[in-house]
């Protein structure tokens, strides 16, 4: 267990999740917690990709529909849907994803710049592309996703 949490300098530890049939990942250092879907209070007149707010043990945390934020097609929530709560700049914000798959280790030398994605709407928010077991993983630039809000 102790070795599993160790990350060598040449590796990045990320949480991988599914979104519109693609695998995305967020650097683990941003992640505060991952929770099941819960009742979201709709906040009128907020940006369209903000779904509302939730009560996270007494704190009011805004929740974003990540698909809508990235301009991807959105679909129904399932029992697999989760809210990933990230912390950026001291503030918490939740992101709805289709399913959380696993914690991955990405060797730095296998992460490429997202040039081949240029032109797609979500490209702005991708900081790199990784490959794990022949599977493509899109690394999300969390600061950008949250910061431009």
């Amino acid at each position, binding site marked *: 267990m102790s070795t599993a949490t160790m990350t060598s300098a040449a590796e990045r530890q990320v949480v991988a999740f599914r979104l519109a049939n693609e695998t995305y990942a967020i650097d683990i250092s941003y992640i505060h917690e991952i929770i099941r879907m819960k009742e979201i209070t709709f*906040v*009128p007149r907020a940006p369209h990709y*903000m779904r*509302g*707010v939730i*009560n996270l043990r007494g704190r*009011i945390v805004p929740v974003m529909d990540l698909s809508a934020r990235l301009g991807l097609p959105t679909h129904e929530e399932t029992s697999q849907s989760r809210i990933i709560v990230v912390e950026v700049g001291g503030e*918490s*914000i939740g992101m709805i994803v289709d399913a959380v798959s696993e914690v991955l280790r990405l060797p730095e030398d296998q992460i490429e710049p997202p040039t081949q994605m240029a032109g797609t709407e979500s490209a702005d928010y991708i900081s790199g592309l990784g490959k794990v077991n022949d599977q493509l993983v899109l690394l999300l630039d969390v600061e950008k996703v949250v910061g431009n809000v």
Partner: protein
Amino acid sequence: MMDTSEYVSLFLEEAAEQIHVLERDILLLEQSPSPEVLNEIFRAAHTLKGSSRAMGFTAMGELTHAMEDAFDALRKGEIRVSTELVNRLFEALDTLKAMRDQIAEGGSTDIACDELVRNLRNALSEAPTGEAAASPTADSQPAPSARDLQEHQLEAALTAIDNGLRVYWFTVRLAEETLMKSVRALMVLQSLDANGGAVLAAFPDEEALDNEQFDLSFDLLVATDKPEEQLRQALLQISEVREVQVQPWQHSAEQRTPSVEPVPVHTTPPILEQGEERPTQTAVSPMAETNKAGVRASASPTVSQTVRVDVARLDTLLNLVGELVIDRTRVAQLGREFEARFQRDELVDSLQETAAHIGRITDELQEHIMKARMLPIEHVFNRFPRMVRDLAQKFGKEVRLVMEGQETELDRSVIEIISDPLIHMLRNSVDHGIETPQEREAAGKPRQGTIRLSARHEENYILIEIEDDGKGMDPARLREAAVRKGLLPRDAAERLSDREALNLIFLPGFSTAKEVTEVSGRGVGMDIVRSNIQRVGGIVDVDSTPGKGTRFAIRLPLTLAIIRALLVRVAGQVYAIPLSSVLETLKIHPQTLQFVGKRPAILLRGRTLPLVSLQAHFYGSETGLLTTAQEEPMFVVVVGLGERQVGLVVSHLIGEQEIVIKSLSRHLGEISGVSGATILGDGRVALILEVADLFQNISACAA
């Protein structure tokens, strides 16, 4: 050298106190240099000189020494107060403050004061000399308090006090050139009589007054139930009455105890009372010996029963109580659910009882912690006398600031936020409200304008009023200006009532000042004032009469954290409306709807009440539009903002509840009509309505 570090914080605190005394008294000095004030101010400077030298802050010691010399010369009647001297003294005081702040930050100060000391000494040597007749402090007459009353006069004064009246010495000075002094004296007596003041004794006696057997001034012992300031003002209206000093009368038996508290002259008393009111300031200090003659000599030698608590700790406590309040509501709700499911069961009963007990304890805990966070508004008001004086001087105005209710307490977070708006409004009053002395005289008003700043509790909010007797605002000119600046189309402006026209000053980009001054009138003023006040859930209202003056009323909640709210349902979601703005709730039939243009309204007790569908406001104009075709009755929450009222149409009324206010994340942006969120007993989140926004929305539509 001895290690003085542990004394530094005590020194700083004491210095802050003495600086405050100095600031307050220099102001008094300018208005009316009474012997009490002069003595007190001298002692304050003396104490500060002693303690700063003892701590090794020589520059500070030198500066206070120069100030002390000035006060000493004033005290002895060698020189008289001049504006130049007061300005120099304030300069010195500002430097003292800066030195103190620097010491607080870094333990030492390198601010030079040689030039200041030189300036001060120069001002001192150039100050007008105090020839006995010219200086009121060197008046040959004995202080009125030293007058011996005859038996029946004393009796009358004591009886008056027993009957709840207050007794004052009025010292009236006539102008030097007064021709018929006896007539003026008679007018003074008549004025007192007409304004509810009973003259108990006169020095010289009334016969002597009648025969003009007095120099220029005379003393009157007056019993009254009216504010002494009111009487004083009435006397000042009499021509050739140059000066009126008022001092509370004290039975000489009480007077023998060394009264070190200054006797309030002219200004309202509370500002001068703090020495004994605030136990936290009476901590035992190693500087006590240098403070023997100090202002706090009234403090008893017992160790004070207070502790200092970090503000952050109080904030944490309040947050925790907030959580508890939420859980209390939750537990109570669970209790009801259990009862519904298991009927009367011993365990359920026991749970219910415990829940009720927790509820009571939580209420009490909450109340006490909120009280612990309260500060008197004096913390904000303190600096205003000085500020108003400086501004008045800058603009060539004569302004008297009267403050009332400094002891009114409110939550420290509210205090922090209210400070800037008040500063701005006072500046406006001095700059735009009060006219120049020449203009005032031409308008038949006293040269000196008056700004009254008061605070008081009213139900569950605080009312702060700023009132001036200046030139007031003309609704017609405001309408004109709003149209000219393109803020409103002409027809909309003309539809506004006078009251609504006055409220135009709160619009962004509005300013009627003919020229931009350094202090105010940049057109970014009152809108920021209003948004700051609204940010803490307060409201601001204005009333004005051209030629007579302007009055601003600010209503603030007692606390920002926990409020009572009316819960309503809109489109399946719960919203909380702060109870402070709810006037009443109504159930109406859609058939009674009327339309003014396209805007829905109803007739309520003869007045047209505009309606806003919250569903339409929040969820777009297609949904929730109000039509007379609806079958179901509608629920309306009537909310008020100042004089204006509007009815909010909701789907259901749920009930009243105490809610804990939480802010919404900035990621959601500014949402018109929502000020924050709260957590309900069932754990769900409800949004809190911002009523003021909804009003703005209506004005925007109307325009």
